[in-house]
């Protein structure tokens, strides 16, 4: 009954050119694997763009005087650095990983809505161009910071209708539309397209994490959209929603903004938790500790994420009862997160560790995440938060999350699934060099921000008191090291894709449906849908994961 045979002709629909042609990556392909790689490569391009902005920022800050760029250029640099890194690197690269992996992991042939998937991807380069186009706008790009607080974001000295802030809002709105399309698609795919036998509690943790993250997108993003529309009206039509001079309420914008943008942190970190949960069992040869608890804790984080946003506004004239309430709810987040951390540690504990590049990045990312978690709890405490509000302490904290855990987690995932995606093995030596440079660079760059913040150095300034110079020089050197660290990565990825050793189906001896099919998988992944009979992470056990492992790819021989 489960031998669902597919019409041979359906195998190569919508596929311009040869299935293996590189041209498919430049086409409106509807194959989730092509779209996944399109997302990842596009995002990495913008990662380099955002990285160049970061180099300018750290170049400016290596001396106390504002001497490298004009202050308005500096403002544009930190605004665009944050915006690009979030909307054009982190979200798209995680969408790419989810796109590539989720259908394979749940045993589906594609996403639920392949065309919608392609449209959502192609919006990314479009709003990327819109945002970069703001360099050409009168008055230059937005200078209001990535959170675009009014009344700063309502200033429009050039007077032009199409100004930097307008283009910023347009780009963010397009990004929101793209993300909602993606979220609808991914949630539908996970809920409705799982293979026979793949119950919710047989799904890999990465799938749980992605589903949880996309649920946050669905309820959070519309709030930001509402705030952005009202800000756009204030800016372009002269309404007074957030303009205090005309009776508006700028704090309301902060509520709209953080109601989404704090949960957005979990949209980012949950898939990284998923990556950690996938990698540690593989490279420690042990089942994931506490699978069900880890799975459910993602959903608990989703629930809590909706009731913590005001902790970004402790210094915004927030009433005392609100401060107490949100301090408490914020600290609660540490519970499901701590559960995960302990589960990973218990998974690694006593395991036979294989320190491949992927595992090194996962371990490094975990260490930096724990550090970020500790400073996060400090920031949740109202008195500490008010003391270090708007200082480098906050910047240091979230860079440990966003770079330390997230970028390192993404690198870990890219190394781990590189053989699956490309059919080639990467160079382990270059991978390890990349890890060493990244880990040292990230800590050199972001650790000094903590003492700087505690000493009182404010963020978003081009010049500072010379007493802060020591830690700033170290941070800048760390940043330049991070810039250099991308070179072995690019060399490795491009070089290995072109002439790396051919990858077998399952180079890491991992357990998972994606490792049962060829590297790279064929166009619709499975000739016969897998029938899942075992829980994931069965390391050290002899149960097969699916009952028809040998039949999944009969088609491969036909081609």
């Amino acid at each position: 009954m489960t031998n669902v045979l597919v019409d041979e002709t359906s195998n190569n629909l919508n596929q311009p050119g040869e299935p293996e042609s590189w041209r498919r990556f430049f086409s409106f392909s509807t194959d989730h694997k092509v779209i996944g790689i399109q997302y990842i490569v596009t995002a990495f391009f913008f990662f380099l763009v955002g990285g160049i902005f970061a180099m300018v920022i750290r170049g400016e800050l290596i001396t106390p005087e504002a001497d490298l760029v004009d202050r308005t250029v500096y403002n544009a640099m930190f605004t665009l650095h944050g915006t690009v890194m979030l909307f054009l690197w982190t979200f798209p690269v995680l969408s790419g990983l989810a796109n590539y992996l989720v259908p394979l992991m749940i045993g589906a042939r594609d996403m639920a809505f392949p065309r919608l998937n392609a449209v959502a991807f192609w919006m990314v380069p479009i709003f990327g161009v819109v945002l970069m186009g703001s360099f050409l706008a009168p008055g230059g790009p937005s200078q209001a910071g990535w959170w675009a607080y009014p009344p700063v974001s309502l200033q429009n000295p050039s007077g032009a209708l199409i100004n930097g802030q307008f283009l910023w809002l347009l780009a963010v709105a397009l990004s929101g539309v793209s993300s909602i399309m993606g979220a609808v698609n991914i949630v539908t795919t996970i809920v409705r397209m799982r293979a026979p036998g793949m119950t919710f509690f047989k799904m890999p943790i990465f799938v749980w994490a992605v589903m949880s993250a996309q649920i946050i997108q669905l309820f959070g993003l519309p709030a930001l959209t509402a705030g952005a529309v009202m800000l756009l009206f204030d800016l372009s039509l002269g309404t007074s929603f957030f303009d205090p001079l005309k009776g508006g309420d700028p704090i309301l914008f902060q509520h709209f903004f953080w109601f989404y943008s704090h949960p957005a942190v979990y949209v980012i970190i949950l898939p990284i938790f998923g990556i950690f949960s996938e990698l540690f069992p593989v490279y420690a040869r042990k089942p994931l500790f506490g699978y069900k608890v880890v799975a459910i804790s993602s959903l608990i984080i989703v629930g809590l994420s909706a009731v913590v946003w005001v902790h970004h506004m402790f210094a915004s004239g927030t009433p005392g009862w609100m401060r107490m309430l949100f301090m408490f709810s914020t600290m609660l987040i540490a519970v499901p997160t701590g559960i995960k951390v302990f589960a990973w540690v218990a998974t690694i504990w006593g395991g036979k560790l294989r320190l491949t590049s992927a595992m090194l990045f996962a371990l490094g990312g975990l260490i930096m995440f724990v550090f970020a978690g500790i400073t996060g709890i400090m920031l949740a405490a109202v008195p500490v938060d008010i003391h270090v509000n708007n200082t480098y302490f906050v910047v240091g904290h979230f860079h440990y999350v966003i770079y330390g855990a997230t970028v390192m987690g993404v690198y870990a995932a890219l190394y781990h699934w590189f053989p699956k995606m490309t059919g080639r093995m990467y160079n382990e030596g270059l991978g390890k060099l990349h890890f060493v440079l990244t880990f040292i660079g990230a800590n050199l760059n972001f650790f000094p921000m903590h003492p700087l913040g505690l000493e009182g150095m404010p963020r978003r300034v081009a010049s500072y008191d010379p007493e802060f110079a020591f830690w700033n020089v170290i941070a800048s050197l760390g940043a330049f090291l991070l810039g250099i660290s991308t070179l072995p990565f690019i060399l490795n990825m491009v070089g290995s894709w072109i002439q790396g050793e051919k990858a077998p189906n399952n180079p890491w001896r991992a357990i998972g449906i994606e490792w049962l099919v060829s590297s790279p998988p064929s166009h619709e992944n499975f000739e016969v849908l897998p029938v899942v009979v075992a829980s994931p992470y069965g390391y050290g056990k002899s149960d097969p994961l699916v009952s028809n492992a040998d039949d999944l790819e009969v088609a491969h021989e036909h081609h």
Partner: protein
Amino acid sequence: MSTTNLDSSLTDEAVLQASGHDEPDNRMFGFIVFLLSESVIFLSFFVGYIVYKTAATDWLPLGVEGLDVREPAINTVVLVSSSFVIYFAERYLHANNIWGFRIFWLLTMAMGSYFLYGQAVEWSGLEFGITDGLFGGTFYLLTGFHGLHVLTGVLLQLIMLGRSFIPGNYDGGEFGVAATSLFWHFVDVIWIVLFLLIYIWQ
């Protein structure tokens, strides 16, 4: 949940579906997820409106005495009734009575268009604009954003009406008709909340 694919392997048609995507059930599920998400935008606007209104010291702009309720109330009755009319249109389609479907569907479109016309008349008669304080801003933002949804609904209905003339197109039900109908109910419910907030709570 996972029985979906097992069951579908029973029929030939379902075998093809299991291989593919854009399955009608998936599309309806995805559309409902989208509508839930979309409703949060309205919810955000409503919350903003309530915050503004309760905090405002002088809510109405100078020279404005409030909103006339009579015409919008008629508009409300028309729009809410159209939700029942579109339900009958769907029933006719399920009963394979294509002309019954078309007549009631067209009636829904007429009622939706009347609503838009009524709103346009109301807007043109108002003595305040979008820049007249938070009152003017929220009024035009909320009614305008909702009106845009009504317009979208009418255009979707037009497309579905056109597609009913393709022979055999609606045999065995049609996702587009069901989704348009659901969207229309959604737009209606939003309007009821909006009407209460803006016109009744003055």
